[in-house]
């Protein structure tokens, strides 16, 4: 009998609490208004127990997916952060378990501006492989050092850089690139790219390259006369669905500001006074969204605030077309014991962001 008691006591001590996910509960209200596309994982933390943040960016839908039901979440990119910097890995489902491939690249966060991401990770639509492009846009003293690097992945491997980090000064006759935007196009095999150009010696400019990953073909500036007061060498830049209007969101004098202009008004951009937070994307319906401080704020194209809901830990991934309908994709990182993570991916039609309830 004593042995029996000891057995149960030992069992009690080694037993652990049932799994719990604070993230899932915090995001439950919002998740209930979206479509759950699938769960990836669990996977080992790429940085062990030193991971301080992690984000899952699912592979973008291809033209083969006409509806959400056809869109399975079976792979994607993991951007994780630790005190050593950021790392990029590729996760894919293999049978009953998730596998992770390491790109071997590490991204130092030394000198990062606390208001801006030092690197922008944009999953891009392609036809064959799953690609992610990493923009390094963070050298305020020498924006000419800003680079891009494309990584290509296929399930079962390999996951590798298809090009070394390449400076973007070659795209526009030696002008440095300060910001980049990747925008989804309907019924197109590729995304649209557009860039904000260095103001040195001239006002800021805009440009779009010819898409030819892993290298961009050179383009020409589309405008070269945009004065952005106080933007310095760092800003976030977007174009509307039809290439106009354009927006620059940047942190100056302790505040986030947003300016809007068109080709006709590029020399006198309009400050959108209703926008007081960082803009993270311009959507296909022309709305602007911010996810600053974990709150999703939706503005119309003129900066009028339309909706604001707490994200509860959900992270904005991108907007993409599924069939003819644009959807906004979010991922939710769920942390479990033993340094393991799982990721849920949600989608919501872009048109319904305005009516999301917190």
């Amino acid at each position, binding site marked *: 009998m004593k042995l029996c008691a000891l057995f149960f*006591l030992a069992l*009690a*001590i080694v037993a652990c609490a*049932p799994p719990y996910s*604070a993230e899932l*509960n*915090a995001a439950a209200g919002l998740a209930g208004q979206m479509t759950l596309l699938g769960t990836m994982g*669990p996977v080992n933390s790429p940085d062990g127990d030193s991971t301080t943040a992690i984000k899952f960016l699912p592979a973008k839908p291809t033209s083969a997916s006409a509806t959400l039901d056809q869109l399975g979440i079976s792979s994607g990119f993991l951007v994780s952060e630790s005190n050593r910097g950021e790392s990029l890995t590729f996760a894919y489902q293999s049978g009953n378990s998730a596998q992770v491939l390491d790109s071997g690249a590490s991204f130092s966060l030394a000198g990062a501006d606390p208001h801006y991401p030092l690197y922008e990770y944009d999953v891009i639509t392609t036809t064959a492989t799953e690609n992610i492009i990493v923009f390094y846009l963070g050298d305020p003293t020498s924006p000419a050092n800003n680079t891009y690097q494309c990584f290509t992945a296929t399930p079962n491997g390999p996951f590798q850089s298809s090009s070394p980090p390449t400076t973007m000064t070659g795209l526009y006759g030696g002008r440095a690139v300060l910001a980049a935007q990747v925008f989804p196009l309907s019924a197109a095999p590729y995304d649209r790219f557009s860039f904000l150009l260095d103001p040195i010696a001239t006002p800021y400019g805009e440009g779009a390259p010819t898409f030819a990953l892993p290298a961009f073909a050179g383009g020409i500036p589309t405008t070269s006369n945009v004065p952005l007061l106080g933007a310095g060498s760092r800003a976030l830049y977007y174009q509307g669905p039809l290439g106009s209007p354009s927006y620059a969101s940047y942190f100056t004098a302790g505040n986030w500001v947003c300016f809007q202009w068109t080709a006709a008004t590029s020399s006198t951009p309009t400050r959108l006074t209703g926008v007081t937070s960082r803009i993270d994307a311009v959507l296909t319906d022309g709305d602007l969204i911010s996810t600053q401080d974990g709150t999703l704020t939706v503005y119309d194209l003129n900066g009028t605030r339309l909706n604001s809901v707490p994200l*509860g830990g959900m992270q904005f991934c991108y907007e993409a077309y599924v069939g003819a309908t644009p959807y906004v994709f979010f991922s939710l990182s769920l942390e479990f014991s033993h340094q*393991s993570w799982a990721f849920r991916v949600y989608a919501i039609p872009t048109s319904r962001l305005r009516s999301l309830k917190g």
Partner: protein
Amino acid sequence: MDISRERWDDIVPLLARKYPALDPLAYTRGPPAAVSVIIRAKPGTVITGLSPKPLAAGPDGTASVDLPSPAPYSLRATLVGYVPVQMTFYLDGQSEISVDQVRSPWLYFDGAFLDGLFPGVSVTYAVPTFPGFVRVGFTSFRAGLAVNQDQLLTSLPLSQITLLFGWYVSPQDRPRRFYLGAGPLLRVTLPPGGSFTIDHLLPWGVQLVAGWEFPFTGNLHAFIELAPTLYATPEPKLFVDSFGTNNGSPNATLPYLNFPPSFAVNPFEVRFGVRWML
């Protein structure tokens, strides 16, 4: 050597003088004779062991039976609402035997630890008419020790409410009692930055409980329970994989079960503690 002669021959006469011999009537009673005995117990008490048919104490709290005396006897007295009495006595001419009956405790308070030493309390109502019970329990995962977690001190904004319908397999007068039970559980949470809600990963479950209860001190009993639990979950695979032990790798050696797309089983839930019986 003649030991008896060496040891006792000198002593026996001394003893015989000191302690005079008894009259034979003092220790010879002849064959046992039947005497009428009244058993005093609570009205309605059923008494077995003294006669081929059970006796029942009448409204006056007595039952009468003829028993050979002198002789040893044992009886068992049972009455709904009272702890059964197992009693042994030597009948030696007495005309009455009283059965000391104690009212059954009907309210239990538990203080216990669940799984990785997460504290909880529960209240049990023991049904007087049969060995069943109903228990309502509350466990907080806000503070506990979880030896096999990443951190020894584990705090989750999670609580668990249980309802258990049980049955004691062992009689109440046994010092060690086994019981079985089953019932639902509900998990509620107050996540950081969120509002009070039902847990979305494991919102509810059904427990099967096998328990062992034994005396501790006074009205306190100790107990230990194995409570394998079936959970409803939208992520049964994650449930199982999260019990990994190798830096997140799923541990296929442990028999956690998942039944996609909606259920998973944790067979290792253990609860132990003390039970105060009123």
